[in-house]
């Protein structure tokens, strides 16, 4: 096919994917149903792969679709489906506006050592230590962080601005939303990547995708044997070089009629730009480059992938060995464990599966999920942690568990979530207003959805909190509501392994329907 329709088709699909993914991350009115979001993110390679390793169900087979797609059509994932890739294309166009040189790419040699090295390191680190490199380099997660950390706050500011105007006209459809940043440390990595990827894509097209991105490199290996690919018609080509200049991947060596298919992202710009229609997308008839395929490399990758699948079973066996929490009920707000979100099963399991894409952070209606700094250790940087000074976990909400694309948070139906104990309440009487000020408060017990925090008689007419850890689910509403400073009088200590809380017991009340007015 030589039709310019190919490129337009690519742009259409890419725009659709990009806008939907973007909306998914900035949906601050919670209008998009979870099922739809799951659909939008179904084809994201790394999340789907992780989910599959965890669940081994076809519901998480998005990455298989991507692999098959790559074997058939080449790295279409990178141009059609990867939000970070599409974002780079947009940025690259911008670069061209600034300086025409930025859009004149030309053929360049591949960064073979760097890209395969990074892929190998990523696989080795993932197999031996954990998910850190994947979290760092997965394009979907990087995109998620960009939107959550940088774009969503801007959208919220815009919302607040428009809301202020609308309110003047007595229209209350929008509401003011406080724009609040995360802790400074959590910005370190997103800022570096924003700068790096921003600069690369602005001036050098898809350099990031072809040098650093492990997903790009992996799919590049597969696309070497893809069925459909771009090829030269030597008879038609008059060596004008326009294809090479327009190639964002710098992978067209027009002098030797050679296209490096491992780097080509099937953007079809070359086809559109070729005045002679010498380039076309179709079946590769002469498998001339087949001999060059490095079988050793391919086996290495296959082996690594197998190992990658292997870790999930290893991780499962370790689950039982995790120690139970040490109870130090007198420790002043010194949590022995951080609280990780419901559906995580255990901190260890969670740390292994979360790529810090931040979707749950941006989707949490209560702003209780925050990127961690040191709570999980430096390797868990940016993974979400419950911050009960910023919010609390709504009793009637399970969005994070349903939305997580990697299954680091397993879906929990609401009834199960309401009994999932992610931490336990600890009361510090010496900090409590009722004791220190001798005045009524009860903010903790008031907000407790299970009445794991309840009030018992204290001096005079006063009542003071008491706790029942068995029915506490660790939602943190008590800690959030507690007005004492600088230390809270009540807080949640995380459960390293999530437990099942007992159901609150209800008894019939002694008061009955009145027959007469009591006054």
């Amino acid at each position: 096919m030589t039709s310019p329709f190919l490129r337009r088709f690519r742009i259409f699909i890419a725009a659709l994917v990009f806008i939907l993914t973007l909306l998914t991350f900035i949906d601050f009115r919670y209008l998009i149903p979870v099922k739809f979001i799951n659909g939008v993110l179904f084809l994201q390679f790394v999340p789907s792969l992780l989910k599959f390793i965890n669940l081994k169900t076809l519901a998480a087979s998005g990455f298989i679709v991507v692999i098959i797609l790559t074997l058939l059509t080449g790295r279409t994932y990178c141009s059609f489906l990867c939000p970070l890739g599409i974002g780079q294309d947009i940025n690259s166009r911008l670069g061209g506006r600034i300086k025409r040189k930025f859009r004149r790419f030309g053929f360049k040699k591949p960064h073979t050592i760097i890209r395969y090295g990074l892929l190998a390191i990523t696989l080795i680190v993932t197999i031996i230590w954990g998910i850190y490199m994947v979290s760092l380099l997965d394009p979907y997660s990087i995109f998620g962080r960009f939107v959550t950390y940088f774009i969503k706050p801007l959208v919220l500011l815009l919302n607040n601005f428009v809301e202020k105007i609308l309110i003047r006209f007595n229209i209350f459809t929008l509401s003011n939303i406080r724009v609040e940043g995360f802790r400074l440390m959590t910005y370190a990595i997103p800022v570096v990547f924003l700068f790096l990827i921003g600069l690369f894509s602005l001036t050098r097209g898809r350099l990031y995708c072809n040098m650093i991105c492990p997903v790009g490199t992996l799919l590049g290996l597969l696309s070497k044997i893809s069925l459909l690919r771009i090829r030269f018609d030597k008879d038609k080509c008059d060596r004008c070089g326009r294809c090479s200049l327009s190639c964002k991947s710098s992978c067209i060596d027009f002098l030797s009629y050679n296209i490096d298919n491992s780097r080509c992202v099937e953007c079809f710009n070359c086809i559109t730009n070729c005045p002679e229609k010498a380039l076309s997308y179709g079946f590769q008839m002469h498998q001339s480059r087949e001999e060059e395929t490095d079988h050793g490399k391919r086996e290495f990758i296959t082996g690594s992938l197998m190992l990658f699948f292997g870790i999930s079973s290893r991780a499962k066996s370790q689950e039982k060995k995790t120690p139970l929490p040490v109870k130090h009920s007198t420790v002043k707000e010194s949590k022995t464990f951080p609280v990780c979100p419901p559906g995580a099963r255990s901190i260890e399991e969670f740390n292994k599966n979360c790529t810090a894409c931040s979707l749950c952070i941006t989707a949490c209606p209560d702003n209780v999920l925050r990127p961690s700094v040191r709570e999980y250790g430096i390797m868990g940087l940016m993974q979400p942690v419950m911050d009960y000074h910023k919010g609390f976990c709504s009793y009637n909400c399970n969005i994070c568990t349903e939305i997580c694309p990697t299954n680091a948070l397993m879906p929990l139906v609401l009834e199960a979530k309401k009994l999932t104990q992610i931490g336990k309440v600890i009361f510090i009487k010496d900090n409590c207003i009722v004791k220190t000020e001798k005045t009524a408060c009860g903010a903790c017990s008031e907000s407790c959805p299970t009445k794991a925090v309840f009030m018992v008689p204290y001096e005079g007419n006063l009542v003071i909190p008491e706790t029942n850890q068995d029915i506490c689910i660790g939602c943190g509403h008590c800690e959030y509501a507690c007005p004492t400073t600088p230390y809270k009088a009540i807080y949640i200590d995380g459960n390293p392994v999530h437990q099942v809380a007992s159901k609150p017991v209800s008894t019939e009340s002694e008061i009955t329907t009145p027959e007469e007015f009591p006054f």
Partner: protein
Amino acid sequence: MKRRDFFNKSLQAGMAAGAAVAVGGYEKLLLPSYGASKYDMVAVMGGGPESMFDLGIQELGGTGAFVGKGQKVLVKPNIGWDVIPELAANTNPMLVKRVIEHCFKAGAKEVYVLDHSIDNWLNTYKNSGIERAAKSAGAKVVPANSESYYHEIEIPAGVRLKKAKVHELLLETDVYINVPVVKDHNSTRMSCSLKNSMGLVWDRGFWHANNLHQCIADFALFEKKPLLNVIDCYNVIVKHGPRGVSKEDVVMMKSLILTTDWVAGDTAAAMMLGADPEKIDYLTIAYKMGLGNMKLDSLNIRRIKM
């Protein structure tokens, strides 16, 4: 600025009146003289939330006695909790709807409904059923979840609470109708009319940390008081309040109390709840500060059983 001056002046006047009451015992002085009704309070039992309100407000002289033509009305229910209407942690949505309908019938130009919810506001507005009910009656359901909606006011006579940030619509509306639901409260024993005001202020943590009872009473000093309190006693949380845990916490009382005196209203509501009003500190403080009457015997109460 002008508004603040106005409030300050009004407050001073209010203080003077309050002091006079405290010294002279002219409790009746503070009771608004709205309406042609001879009753201080109307209590209805045995009907639905709507029919009880229809009857009760008629006995109080009709909604027109409180809401004038072209006025802006603030209807303040309790929408604090993300629970379904049957669990009664929020005001009955049918009652809220009926109150709004009456306001419009009386010629109100605009009716606003809001509450600074404790649970996530989007969920509480939705799951309480109040958002839908209020909108269907033509009211504007307004967010109250951000500090940007709140303006600082002063309460010079306040003992502990001398300043508070209140929702701008409390200041901008002409009429404020308080529509609380009576509930058990784990700490203050009862939540009702006076405590419902907490949903109009931003920093509730300050109240909790600085003698909650005194702050509740102090805020009742603020110039903008409800012209009418419609106390929902249809379904009542009698334990595990103010949120409640399960249906076992709720007792159907099928009652409604309408009054212009919120201290009196809360006293009656406390008795519905089976609580001793004398043991509810904010009530006794408010009474001593001259903010209303706790002596129900001295009031003219109309009791109706449907």
